[in-house]
C-alpha cells in the first residue's frame, strides 16, 4: 500500500492512501516518519505524525503499515527510559548524539542481552493461553512468560536465551517468543475487575492520613505552576509502596527528567532496599519534543503498566502532566479543523480521559492472580483556574482530588495540598484499613486532626476582626497547636530526611501533637496561664 503526500499542516499530513483502517500506522516522506491514521475519507486519509514534519514535501511517498501503533512487551522494560513511542532514549543518544534528529528506528528492548529462562513446562505438554511457560529473573522480579496459543509444546528453552531468538515452538510450528506486541490504545484483558480495598501508601502524610488512596484507585492533583506538582509526583515515585512504577514526563521540562534519572539511579526503594530504577519505567516526551508523540505517550505508558499488572504486580502510573496531553489532543484536533468544544478542546476530551482512567483498577488476571494499576496524574490548569475543562473532566472520574494551593506554595508549605478543598472517595474504607493494620486509634486521630484544622479556620476569621489579642486563651492554644499540625505534620520537605514518612511514623507524629494539645487544654482548665502552658510543651 503506497501513495503520496497531498498536504501538510502542523503535525498532520494528508495522504492519498486508500484501504487503510482508522489508527493504522503510516510511514510518510522520504524520511519514513511514523504516524497514525486519525481520519479516513473515500480517497484520502489524514495522518497524525509523531515526528517533526519540518522539511517534509508534498508528493513524497506514504506507506500503510497495516497495523496500529503498538509497543513491545517483554523482559527488560524495567529501568528503561523511552520516548512517547517507546523508542529507547539511551540508545538513541549512544547512536546519534545528544540531540534527537527524528527518523531513527530502534527496537525498544535489547535483543542481545542474555536472560536466564527457567521453564515451568516441558516438551510434549499441552498448554492453554495465559498459562505460565516459565520465567526469567528481571532484577528482583520474577517475570513470567505466558503461553499465547493453545496446543502442544514441541520445544522450550532452558537457561540462557535472548529476545532476538525464539524461546521455543509449538507442535503446529508456531514460534514462542518472550516478546509480545500490543496496540497501545487497546486495554489489555483480564478476568474480572475487583473493587479497590487495600491502601496505596505514598509516604506523604497529608495524603496517607487525611486523604488516603487505594491500590487500583485514581487521583489527580491540579495546581498552578510552582505549586509542587512535579516534586510531589517524584516524591511519590520514590517512596510509594507498590511493586513497580511507570513515570510519564508528559510535555514538561527536560532538566526535570535529567534530575529524576540521576536521583533514581542512586536511590534505593525504601520498602525493598533494591535500587529504585530497577522498579521503574520512565516514559518521557518533553514539551519541546513532537506534540503527537506526547499524545501517544500516556497510552504507551499505560500499556506497559498493564503488562506488569497482568503478572500480578501492583503498579502505579504517575503522569506529569495530563494537561499537556490534553493540549496535544487539542493541537491535533485543531489542525484537523474539527469543531471545538470548550476552550478549543475537542468535544471527545472527557470521554478519552474517562477511557484512560478506566484502565486503572484492581483485577483478577487471566492467570488468576491479583494485580493492580493505580494512577496519580498532575493537572496544570491555566492561570491556576480549576474551572477549566481538563480539571473538570478529570474530576468526573478521578477517585481522589488533591488541590494544590498557590498561597500555601508561596508560604513554602509543601506539599501544598489544601486540606479543606481536597477529598478522597477511598477515605472511609482506607481509614478503616489503617485502623485495623497500623493502630486502632487511627480513625479517632483522623477525626481530631480534621476538627483542629476546621476550628483553626473559624478562629482565624474571628482573629481577623478582633485580633489575636482578643481571643481567649483556649482558642489561642488551639491556634498554636493547629500551626504545629500544619508545619510539623502536614508539610514535608522533599529535600530532607522527612521526605518519606511510613504510616507508623505518620501516626506517631499526629498522636504526639494531639496528646500535647489535650494536656495543655487540661492545664488551662486547671487555671494555668497560656504562656506557662506553651513553655511547658
Amino acid at each position: 500500500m503506497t501513495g503520496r503526500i497531498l498536504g501538510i499542516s502542523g503535525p498532520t499530513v494528508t495522504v492519498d492512501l486508500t484501504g487503510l483502517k482508522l489508527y493504522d500506522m503510516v510511514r510518510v516522506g522520504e524520511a519514513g516518519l511514523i504516524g497514525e491514521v486519525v481520519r479516513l475519507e473515500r480517497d484520502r486519509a489524514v495522518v497524525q505524525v509523531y515526528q517533526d514534519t519540518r522539511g517534509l514535501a508534498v508528493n513524497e511517498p506514504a506507506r500503510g503499515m497495516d497495523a496500529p501503533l503498538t509497543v513491545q512487551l517483554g523482559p527488560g522494560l524495567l529501568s528503561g527510559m523511552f520516548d512517547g513511542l517507546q523508542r529507547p532514549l539511551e540508545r538513541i543518544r549512544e547512536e546519534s548524539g545528544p540531540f534527537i534528529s527524528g527518523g531513527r528506528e530502534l527496537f525498544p528492548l535489547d535483543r542481545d542481552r542474555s536472560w536466564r529462562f527457567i521453564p515451568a513446562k516441558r516438551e510434549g505438554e499441552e498448554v492453554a493461553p495465559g498459562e505460565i511457560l516459565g520465567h526469567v529473573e528481571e532484577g528482583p522480579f520474577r517475570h513470567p512468560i505466558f503461553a499465547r496459543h493453545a496446543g502442544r509444546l514441541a520445544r522450550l528453552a532452558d537457561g540462557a536465551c535472548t529476545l532476538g531468538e525464539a524461546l521455543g515452538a509449538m507442535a503446529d510450528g508456531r514460534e514462542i517468543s518472550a516478546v509480545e506486541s500490543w496496540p497501545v490504545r487497546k486495554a489489555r484483558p483480564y478476568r474480572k475487575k475487583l473493587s479497590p480495598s487495600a491502601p496505596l501508601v505514598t509516604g506523604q502524610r497529608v495524603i496517607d492520613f487525611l486523604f488516603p488512596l487505594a491500590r487500583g484507585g485514581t487521583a489527580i492533583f491540579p495546581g498552578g505552576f510552582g505549586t509542587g506538582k512535579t516534586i510531589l509526583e517524584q516524591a511519590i515515585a520514590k517512596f510509594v509502596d507498590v511493586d513497580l512504577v511507570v513515570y510519564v514526563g508528559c510535555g514538561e521540562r527536560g532538566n526535570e527528567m535529567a534530575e529524576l534519572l540521576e536521583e533514581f539511579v542512586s536511590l534505593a526503594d525504601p520498602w525493598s532496599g533494591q535500587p529504585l530504577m530497577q522498579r521503574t519505567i520512565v516514559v518521557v516526551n518533553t514539551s519541546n519534543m513532537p506534540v503527537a508523540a506526547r499524545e501517544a505517550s500516556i497510552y504507551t505508558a499505560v500499556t506497559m503498566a498493564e503488562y506488569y499488572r497482568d503478572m500480578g504486580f501492583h503498579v502505579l502510573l504517575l503522569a506529569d502532566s495530563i494537561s499537556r496531553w490534553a493540549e496535544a489532543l487539542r493541537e491535533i484536533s485543531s489542525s484537523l479543523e474539527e469543531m471545538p468544544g470548550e476552550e478549543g478542546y475537542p468535544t471527545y476530551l472527557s470521554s478519552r480521559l474517562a477511557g484512560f482512567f478506566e484502565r486503572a483498577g484492581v483485577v483478577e488476571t487471566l492467570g488468576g492472580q491479583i494485580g493492580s494499576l493505580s494512577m496519580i496524574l498532575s493537572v496544570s490548569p491555566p492561570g491556576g483556574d480549576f474551572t477549566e475543562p481538563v480539571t473538570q473532566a478529570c474530576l468526573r472520574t478521578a477517585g481522589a482530588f488533591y488541590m494544590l494551593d498557590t498561597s500555601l506554595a508561596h508560604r513554602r508549605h509543601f506539599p501544598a495540598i489544601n486540606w479543606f478543598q481536597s477529598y478522597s472517595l477511598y477515605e472511609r474504607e482506607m481509614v478503616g484499613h489503617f485502623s485495623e493494620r497500623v493502630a486502632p486509634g487511627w480513625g479517632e486521630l483522623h477525626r481530631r486532626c480534621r476538627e483542629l484544622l476546621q476550628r483553626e479556620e473559624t478562629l482565624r476569621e474571628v482573629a481577623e476582626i478582633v485580633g489575636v489579642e482578643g481571643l481567649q486563651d483556649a482558642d489561642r492554644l488551639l491556634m498554636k497547636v493547629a500551626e504545629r499540625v500544619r508545619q510539623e505534620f502536614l508539610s514535608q520537605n522533599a529535600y530532607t530526611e522527612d521526605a518519606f514518612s511510613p504510616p507508623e511514623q505518620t501516626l506517631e507524629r499526629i498522636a504526639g501533637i494531639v496528646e500535647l494539645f489535650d494536656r495543655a487544654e487540661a492545664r488551662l482548665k486547671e487555671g494555668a496561664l497560656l504562656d506557662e502552658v506553651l513553655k511547658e510543651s
Partner: protein
Amino acid sequence: MRLSEHIYRTISSIRGPLLFADGILAVRIGEVVRIAYPDGTVSDGEVLKIDGGTVLIQVFGETRGLDLATPLVFTDAVKKAPLSAEIIGRVFNGSFLPLDGAPMFVPERWGPVTGMPLNPTARARPEEFIETGFSAIDGLNTLVKGQKLPIFSSAGLPAREMAAGILRNSRLAGGGEFAVVFVALGLTHHDYSFYMQVLAEMKSGFVAFINRAGEPVVERLLAPRFGLAVAEYLAFTRGMDVLVLVTDMTNYCDALREVSTAREELPGRRGYPGYMYSDLASIYERAGRIKGMAGSVTMLPVVTMPEDDITHPIPDLTGYITEGQIVLSRELHQREVFPPVDVLPSLSRLMQRGIGAGHTREDHRRVANLLYKHYAKGRDLRRLEAIVGRDGMIESDRLMLDFAEAFERELVNQGGARRDIDETLDTGIALLRRFSLETS
C-alpha cells in the same frame, strides 16, 4: 528532491503577514521562500501549510507593498542560521542581516534555526552557581548555568535596569569563556540605545539580534531562534557559557497571536493560539547543559505581564515551562526598593542543587530558609495589620512586621551596588540576628 529553485507568480491572496499561492509543486513544510518586492527589496518567508498545490506562506518582512504578481522563489531549503566564531561582537537585525555596518562573516557552518530537541538522557543537571550580584536572586532564588529563569515585570517597572545589572555583574563559577546573546523584540529606540550602551561597556563578548518597535512583527518569531541557534553553537561547539537575554517575550507572543489570527485559527485564552505552550517550549527548552560537553546555555527572558496579571497566558505559560521566575513588584518599586523583587512568588526551581558547600556557602540553605520563612510570616501579618491595626497585635507579631520591613529595605534593596554571595548571606545573617531569629 528538486534540483533548482522554482519561481512562481501565483499569489492568490495576501492577508496580514500571510500569503496564499496556488499551483506550487513539490513544496516542503518550513521551506524558505524568497519574496522580491516590486521596489527591488527582498524578504524571506516560510511555508506554514500545504494543501495540494495551495501553499500558505508566512512573510518575515512587511507585506505592505506586495501585489499578486510578486514573484516567489521556492528555495527547496528550510531556514538555517550561519554560524562562526567570528560572530562575537556583531549586531544583526531580526533577519540576521548586519546592522553594524561591517560585512557579513563567512559561515563556518549552517545550523537549523528551530534547533532539535535535546535528548533528556543527554542533559546534565544544572548546578553551577551564577552570581548575579543581586541578593534577592543569589541569596533566595539562585540562578545556575543551564537554567531558564524569566523576569516577570509590569509596565513601568525597572526590568531593563535589572537585566542590565545582571549582564554587567554576572560571574560564573568555574569561569569558562562567557558570552552574551542579546535578543531584542519590538524594542523602542530609547530602550535600544540603553541596551547597546550596556553591551558596549561589557567586558565579555556579545552577539545582538535587534528587532525594533517599527520593524516587521513576524520577524520577532525568528529572531529568538537565530539567537538560540548561535547560543547553542557557541556553547556546544565552542564550549562557552552563554547567557541569552530575550526582551520582551510579550512582544513575541503578540506576534504569534497576530499570525494565528491571520490564519483564522481558533483563538485560545485572550486570543493567543492553543499551541502557544508548545511554541514557547521550543524556545525556552533550548537552555541547558549536555553531559560530557563543556559550555551551557542559560536563558533570562523578560516578560511584561499585561495588566500586572501573573495569570495572563504569557507569564502563565512561561512559568509553566521555565525553571522558576523572578517577580517584580509595583509596590516595592513605589517604595524605591531596587531591585523591586517580590521574593514570595519568585522561585528558582534549580536552586537546591546550586547552593551549599562547594557551590556557594555551607550555611546558604539554612539562611535562605529562615529568611524566607520569617518574611512570609511578616507579609501574612500585614494583612492582619490592615484590619486590626498594629496595636491590636501581639508583641511577637509586631516584631515580624518589622522584620519584613527591614528585609525589604536592607536585603532586597541594594540600589546600584553589587553584592557578592558572602555579602548577601552576611546581610541576611545580620538581619536575623538583629531580630533574634537566627535559630528558630
